């Protein structure tokens, strides 16, 4: 019997369900450890060595080192846990959320001030909204890397 997961067809979205949580347990608990100031200091002093103390996959460690939040989420990370990395780096939720869209910080902030991202075209995979796979990356920050 398979489980009913109707949220799999929402574009640009990974729902943190029991399966993702299982994959991301150690990654998320590493993030949790950064709530202690002493651990933040040790992590900042030598990120790789600190990550090696955790039974995370190599892919997860590389995604953290690259601060690639989309990759972290694909590998089981959850945004509320990953936010502890952002706090360690001195970044806000808005900066973190924006980083996953390919927009610059300014572009993302402007989108929010103008009322945010429209749901039109972004309800289901296969439509033509800004969050669809064929429209990535969005904005100037993502395009610089191409």
């Amino acid at each position, binding site marked *: 019997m398979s489980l009913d997961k*109707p*949220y799999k067809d*929402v*574009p*640009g*979205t*990974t*729902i*943190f*369900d*029991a399966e993702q*949580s299982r994959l*991301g*347990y150690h990654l*998320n*608990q590493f993030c*949790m450890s*950064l*709530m202690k*100031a002493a651990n*933040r200091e040790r992590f900042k002093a030598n990120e790789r060595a600190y990550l090696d103390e955790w039974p995370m996959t190599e892919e997860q460690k590389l995604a953290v080192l690259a601060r690639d*939040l*989309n990759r972290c*989420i694909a590998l089981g990370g*959850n*945004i*509320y*846990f990953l*936010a*502890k990395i*952002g*706090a*360690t780096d001195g970044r*806000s*939720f*808005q900066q*973190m*959320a*924006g980083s*996953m*869209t*390919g927009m610059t910080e300014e572009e*993302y902030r402007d*989108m*929010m*001030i103008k*009322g*945010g*991202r429209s*749901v039109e075209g*972004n*309800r*289901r995979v296969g439509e033509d909204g*800004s*969050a669809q*796979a064929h*429209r*990535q*990356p*969005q904005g100037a920050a993502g395009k610089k890397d191409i």
Partner: protein
Amino acid sequence: MARITASVYTSHVPAIGAALDLGKSHEPYWQPLFAGYDFSKQWMKDNKPDVIFLVYNDHATAFSLDMIPTFAIGTADSYQPADEGWGPRPVPVVKGHSALASHIAQSVIQQDFDLTIVNKMDVDHGLTVPLSLMCGQPEAWPCPVIPFAVNVVQYPVPSGRRCFMLGQAIRRAVESYDEDINVHIWGTGGMSHQLQGPRAGLINAEWDNKFLDRLIADPDGLSKVPHIDYVREAGSEGIELVMWLIARGAMADVAGGKPPKVAHRFFHVPASNTAVGHLILENQ
């Protein structure tokens, strides 16, 4: 006997707490948001409760992935504002009401809702930002608070229907408490927002406003909306709105009383990544 006289609904964005704590509330970006709560701060003074039953969610603060309770009631005497990684918010300690909380826990569990009982935890912005919005920056919060944490971080979260029925059980629990005290129940979180992936930044003002309309006039129908509609229409983090149905379920009309009076309604976009909604409903 104790009675629930009003319910309050509000979003709880962490950036709102930071704006207040850093003295930015009069900046043009934040001013329209805080203006929406001017009425509410006065209303809190005019309608001071004896206890606030505050439904909120923890954001990987008190609860990591080591334990994920679906419904957790705080029965402690006090709760410290948490260090969420940016340092603790400079807000008062949250005093609890262990006698009423223990009474509610016993009653609600006997009504078949299996609550987790928490005697020690820190509280994060999910709880302290609504207090700041409604009370400003006092030396001490105006009354004791019973924290009620709902898992909306790991799916599946409780359904809207389950939350609505839980609210009804909480009302019965409060009304079976002998002391004659005035209780407010708050539902917090939401409205539309998504903090992750290429769809981050999603806002759906039309859906949010329909949610407010139905929360007021058709809460029973609203409670039947499935999870997937919240995710698709209001973003992956918009699912927090199920918590509002707990507070709404505790209002008198759901048990056959009069419809509540809408004392205040406010909606604003954006606060950081999020649409902010706010309602005050009074039992008649």
